[in-house]
């Protein structure tokens, strides 16, 4: 097991209102960790999807979508971890979508997980011992 370095932690009381602040923190720490411009865009895109999912699905669009943001780094890369206390999300219950057909039909839904998986190297969902939910986004760092 690789040793993880804790780079950042903050709790936001309303992810809808604090959307920009959360993503600004991710961008700042990711840039300091050495991600290049393309990778910064991708981690921003993945984090934006994760926060949007939490607001819209875990908290069903209700106010007060409390989110904890943690950023860690280990040999697998930079990890952005978002914790929420809303409805759990099980990605295995989300069917694979045909993106072209979905968009051509003007249907919403299912795109967020697809985009997250394209933006970062790993997307993991789970439940913490206290019952809260987490999503962990891992983006490989450039070789030194």
């Amino acid at each position, binding site marked *: 097991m690789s040793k993880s370095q804790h780079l950042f932690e903050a709790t936001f009381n309303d992810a*809808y209102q604090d*959307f*920009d602040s959360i*993503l600004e923190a991710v961008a700042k720490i990711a840039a300091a960790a050495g991600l290049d411009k393309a990778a910064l*865009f991708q981690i*921003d*895109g993945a984090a*934006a*999807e994760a926060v*949007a999912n939490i*607001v*819209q699905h875990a908290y069903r669009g209700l106010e007060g979508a409390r989110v904890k943001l943690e950023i860690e780094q280990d040999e697998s890369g930079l990890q952005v971890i978002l914790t929420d206390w809303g409805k759990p999300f099980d990605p295995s219950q989300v069917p694979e979508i045909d*993106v*072209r057909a*979905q*968009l*051509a039909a*003007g*249907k*919403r*839904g299912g*795109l*967020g997980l*697809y*985009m997250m998986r*394209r933006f970062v190297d790993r997307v993991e969902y789970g439940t913490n011992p206290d019952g809260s939910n987490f999503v962990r986004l891992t983006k490989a760092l450039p070789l030194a």
Partner: protein
Amino acid sequence: MAHPPGETKPCDVVILHPDRPVNLRSIARLEDALAEQLRHARYKVVVDFEGVNRMPSTGIGVLSEMVGLFRREGGDLKVCTLSYELSQVFDMLALDEVLNVYSTQEEALRAFKP
């Protein structure tokens, strides 16, 4: 409720500029602004993404759903001035198969001319 600033060009084309940075609130405002154009029978709309570097799937969903509503009325929802980053999202999702995409606002406006 305020909406993203819109302006009407010749040929009755409405130009919309999403608020920046794009977030859940600005996407909701864009959706409201598009719905308002439909309510007022303004069926020719260009969304100018100049300076926009992010578009979550929520926003993509709004665009892909709304474009069908404008076309049903004989109009269109065209998009223009995509940043490099936004172009990557459009390429990833093959959005140019759903939306008419133009490099500049002028090109998008020209495309509405009969």
